């Protein structure tokens, strides 16, 4: 039975995947249902292929818009993609995704983009996003990555104080957890998702204690999981029920402006 309080911030769809496969829209909805996840922030799988360059990216963003329009009750929020290797035209596509298509933000996996989070090639994209009020940048981090080290997210969050960032996969191991806590102390414009988190050593409890419940977001990483152990991790965490509600959906609704829209 879907839990109406859950808003999963981390669900990807591979729009090039065969219809009905696990990573297609239909497959993702099946997995959400199986886990009792009512609603999610949908974003294109960052590993999409780009044989046509910017046109490949635009096709992903168009598909994300169509999916959000087709299932507004399941995907109340959609994110787009943009590629730093596409230069100025990549920035134009970022702006189009956020304005013309009305997507709520962009997702970056810089290991896939091939450019560091804080590299010069990212600047035009983030500058374009900064012109759109309320845009959210979801950025994958990984403690041992060359291109998506957590500190690099801190650099761009400091450079772009008007943008809100979500560190995707922010607690993959204890080093990553420590880096996320450090980021949280220094940058108030970063939120942190629990997708792919370590499930030992009280990850949720420590995140609430060290960062605060109001910046922690539940993310499932569907379709890379069939069963969301991280949803269970939040449900059984030794934290206040109000904090649990914030993590499972309240924070995300506030971050993406859904509470304001409901009023």
């Amino acid at each position, binding site marked *: 039975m879907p839990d109406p309080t859950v808003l999963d911030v981390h669900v990807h769809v591979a729009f090039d995947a065969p219809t009905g496969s696990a990573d297609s829209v239909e497959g993702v909805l099946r997995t959400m249902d199986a886990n009792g996840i009512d609603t999610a922030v949908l974003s294109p799988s960052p590993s999409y*292929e780009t044989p*046509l360059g910017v*046109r490949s990216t635009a096709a992903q963003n168009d598909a994300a818009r169509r999916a959000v329009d087709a299932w507004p009750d399941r995907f109340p929020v959609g994110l787009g993609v943009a590629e730093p290797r596409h*230069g100025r035209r990549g920035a134009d596509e970022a702006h189009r995704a956020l304005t013309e298509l009305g997507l709520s933000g962009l997702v970056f996996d810089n290991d896939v983009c091939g450019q560091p989070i804080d590299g010069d090639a990212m600047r035009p994209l983030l500058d374009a996003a900064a012109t759109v009020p309320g845009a959210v940048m979801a950025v994958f981090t990984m403690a041992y990555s*060359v291109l998506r080290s957590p500190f690099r997210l801190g650099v761009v969050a400091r450079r772009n104080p008007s943008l809100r960032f979500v560190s995707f996969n922010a607690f993959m191991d204890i080093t990553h957890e420590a880096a996320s806590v450090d980021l949280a102390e220094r940058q108030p414009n970063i939120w942190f998702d629990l997708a792919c988190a370590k499930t030992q050593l009280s990850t949720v409890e420590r995140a609430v204690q060290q960062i605060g419940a109001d910046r922690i977001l539940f993310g499932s990483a569907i379709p890379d999981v069939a069963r969301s152990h991280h949803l269970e991790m939040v449900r059984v965490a030794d934290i206040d029920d109000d904090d649990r509600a914030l993590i499972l959906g309240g924070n995300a609704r506030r971050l993406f402006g859904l509470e304001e829209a409901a009023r």
Partner: protein
Amino acid sequence: MTNHYDIVDVHVHLGASAALSVAGGVDDLLRKLDVNGIGCAVLSPIPGQEDPDGIESTRAVNDAIAAARDAHPDRFPRILAAVEPRHGAPALPEVDRTVGDLGFSGLSFHNDFQGFPADHPTMFTIIERLAAHPSAIAQLHSAIHSWLEAPFQVGKLAAAFPELRFVNAHALMDPTQTSYTLWQAPQLPNMYFDTCVSQKYGFPIERVVAELGDDRFMFGSDIPYMRDRCLDLDLILHADVPDESKRRILGGNARRLFDIPE
């Protein structure tokens, strides 16, 4: 800089890297070759170039490499092409166009800047296509702490295509990678290594010559990634190894692998 060695550099890049904000045009590359006394080089596209038009962007990059070779055949006698794994199956014809039609010696990959791991299924597909071309060479950059181009991932490709020759670039970057290289090399006789961006302590050249011999390591400068002097060259020139080993590492091995006449 002058010395009495015949120096062939297997690792020179042309173009502008959006990833690392480094660029080198042909004139700049030639100047840096001259500054370092390097006779000729294997030229490849600089990793991480912008590709707003996808495959068309890559074709333009490769065309520029071919043009540089045609303009300076004595300095860039051999060239490697870029093929982007993120372009998927539509990228495969570029393998045939470059290696088959334009006379490239093989392909160059730097997976940290190309988005897909070196052992991604698309990489196997590309390498399989490359292996259809006789005498082709696959250059793959590696980094011991990378999760996209760790040496073991490069090794998986080399093990899967034993008839193809591989160049593991940056194989001596730090003590862990050097140790891994020494462990990996005996298992993969089709893998060669370059000395580009080597650790400048702990005697890496002396170690590899002592433990593996001198016939599978080749000098690489990484031009244009330095202002002028290439200290990786100094590392070899001043290594405590036999002079004949230096000759092989500095040029002889590269001439043999890439079939570059004296």
